[in-house]
């Protein structure tokens, strides 16, 4: 078994999981404590010792299935075991297609329990008589599904069509059919298909737009903690804090007047003042929903926050966010009456900086942080990098989040390079992961 597990660990490492020797030793220890007869227990024991986050768990699940399926097939191939005979045996004309159809449908609807795997084999055997497979597994799966007349529900929960079955269950069934077909193919050819790495789509955790919004809120909550505690790393060592004489003297009464323990004045938490500028022009349409949700989440977390949206000109929308609480209302209000005077609909960064500086000149100080969300595409107009440098110089810190991959920066009308030198940090940012990376980077950057 040991070499198999090492192979599995190798495969996990190839999928990007950090599996160290100590984890493997743990896994062996754990496997000694559980019974191997139960696949669930076996897999859980591995998961508890090898996978150290939810994402890792998901990867392990996928790799585990694929790996042991292949191992089992290889063993079977090496020993010359074949199941083909039984498959043919079942299919000698006794399966009534209509009856099978009914049975599968009932099982998928969960009205009667049956082994999906067995049904999948029956289905293959039954359709096998109608003509040989095409050799392409994906095509065969769909052909079998059509033969059986299985249709997924149009909407979850609604069952208008009497022939339709729940989508999830149907997918499960298709998975079984696919696996059985693969098994048959391996038996016929006597070789294993090459191992494929997991597709990105499969390994991502299932999420919906609602969860995305929640994820943004979570990351921003993290951001707030980071900003609030920044500069407090040395609190434990009382670096650069002021002795509170009164409290020290009072304390010393307990030790006979000897000021044994110094008391310090509590350091006031840093109150970050945020200025967020958000591009809402058409060139960043896809990103601006994401950016607006970031802005929305920021407003939930910070009290001293002023937000601006801009296209050609700039408009302060702090009030809109304070007035409207739900995200839907906010985006409607901004689209409707924020008054982002977009005469042409093209972004004009230069003009935006001029107006921004004019509006907030007196409020910018070294304690404030400016965050720009935009793609730095000026549509060929004057970027006014000098003005931007004034903004950056007055503010304590300036961050730029660009919704385009770094590769596209400075191509075409993007003038990222003109602004980059003045920023404390620039980040590409179009997923919550990158937003998290931004938050992480913030901790490493000291103010000033």
């Amino acid at each position, binding site marked *: 078994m040991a070499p198999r597990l090492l192979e599995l660990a190798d495969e996990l490492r190839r999928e990007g999981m*950090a599996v*160290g020797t*100590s*984890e493997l030793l*743990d896994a062996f*220890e*754990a496997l000694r*404590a*559980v019974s191997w007869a139960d696949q*669930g*227990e076996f897999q*859980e*024991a591995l*998961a*508890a*010792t090898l*996978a*150290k*986050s*939810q994402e890792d*768990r998901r990867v392990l699940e996928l790799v585990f299935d694929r790996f042991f399926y292949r191992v089992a097939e290889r063993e079977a191939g090496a020993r010359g075991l074949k199941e083909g005979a039984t498959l043919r045996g079942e299919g000698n004309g006794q399966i009534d297609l209509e009856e099978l159809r009914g049975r599968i449908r009932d099982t998928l609807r969960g009205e009667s329990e049956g082994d999906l795997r067995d049904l999948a084999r029956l289905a293959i055997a039954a359709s096998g008589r109608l003509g040989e497979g095409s050799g392409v597994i994906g095509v065969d799966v769909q052909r079998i599904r059509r033969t059986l007349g299985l249709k997924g529900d149009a909407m979850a929960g609604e069952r208008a069509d009497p022939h339709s079955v729940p989508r999830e269950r149907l997918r499960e069934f298709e998975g079984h059919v696919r696996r059985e077909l693969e098994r048959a193919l391996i038996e016929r050819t006597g070789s294993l298909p090459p191992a494929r790495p997991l597709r990105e789509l499969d390994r991502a955790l299932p999420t919906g737009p*609602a*969860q995305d*919004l*929640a994820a943004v*809120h979570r990351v921003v*909550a*993290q951001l707030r*903690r980071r900003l609030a*505690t920044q500069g407090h790393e040395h*609190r*434990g060592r009382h670096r650069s804090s002021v002795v509170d004489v009164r409290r020290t003297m009072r304390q010393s009464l*307990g*030790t*006979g007047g*000897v000021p*044994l323990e110094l008391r310090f004045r509590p350091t006031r938490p840093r109150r970050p003042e945020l200025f967020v500028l958000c591009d809402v022009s058409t060139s960043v349409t896809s990103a601006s929903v994401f950016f607006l949700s970031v802005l929305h989440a920021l407003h939930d977390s910070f009290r001293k926050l002023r937000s601006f949206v801009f296209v050609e000109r700039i408009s302060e929308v702090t009030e809109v966010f304070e007035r409207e*609480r*739900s995200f839907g209302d906010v985006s409607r209000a901004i689209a409707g009456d924020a008054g982002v005077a977009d005469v042409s609909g093209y972004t004009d960064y230069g003009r935006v900086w001029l107006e921004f500086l004019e509006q907030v000149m007196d409020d910018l100080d070294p304690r404030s942080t400016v965050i720009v969300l935009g793609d730095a595409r000026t549509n060929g107009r004057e970027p006014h990098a000098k003005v931007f440098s004034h903004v950056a110089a007055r503010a304590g810190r300036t961050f730029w989040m660009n919704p385009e991959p770094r590769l596209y920066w400075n191509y075409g009308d993007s003038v990222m390079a003109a602004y980059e030198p003045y920023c404390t940090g620039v980040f590409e940012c179009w997923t919550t992961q990158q937003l998290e990376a931004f938050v992480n980077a913030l901790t490493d950057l000291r103010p000033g």
Partner: protein
Amino acid sequence: MSADFGSIEETQKALESAGYLAGDSTALVCFLAQELGKPVLVEGPAGVGKTELAKALSRAGGRPLIRLQCYEGLDEAKALYEWNYRKQLLRIQVEASDAGWQEVKDDIFGEEFLLSRPLLTAISEEQPVVLLIDEIDKADQEFEAMLLEVLSEFQVSIPELGVVKARSHPLVLLTSNNSRELTEALKRRCLYLWLDYPDAGRELEIVRLHAPDLQEHVARKLVEVVHMVRDLDLKKPPSIAESIDWARALLLLGAEDVDGELLKRTMSIIVKHRTDLDLVAERVGVKLTDGLIGSRPAG
């Protein structure tokens, strides 16, 4: 008296008798933790019973529970040990003035002057305990590094005294809400357990275990509503503890059925944000009034 669990099934049964319905993986990891003597890192959304698991383990195994709540700025003096220097000072004053330095030093750095904090208490306890390190993600990264010695060797080094080794093997649970990524070093030393919201069937069991007098169909409908609320995009989805609270509240109110009106009156038990309240009333309340919920069996 403390007793070890003999098998996974036994662990599950013991936890159930302590009022905690553990899933298969939870029972398995608890059993492994005891067998391998490794700490368990429990992660999951707020309110799925991470802390409760530690309490149940302590009840089920008859081990006392020692809890260390983490927060920002937690340090060794609060978590491990501290010298009681007031007492030391008094001792020095009482000591005759001609006593030698060595004598005094040996005298004042004894166990008598050591204030032991949760971690030291847990490993110096005669009988095995359950040590709960709650919300480890709230503590600073330096604190994690300090935990490494305690968690892998079960010992604490005190410069003046030497190394204090564990007399018994504590069962250690660390919980995290994922508000910050934990260090690899810590993760490597732990078994990992992910707790998620239970499916409708299990949650129904949990609710019925804690509110046994509630009528079956009310409980069923309640769980269905809670699940529907969790699917919405809320700031804070209702936890298991909140659905139990709600069940108890319905019991007190003598509710016969969960309808739109009742939901509106008691919603504040499961939903704790104003915007969330509006959303739930709008999405779920309407369905309840129209009788769309409860017609199908839960699960």
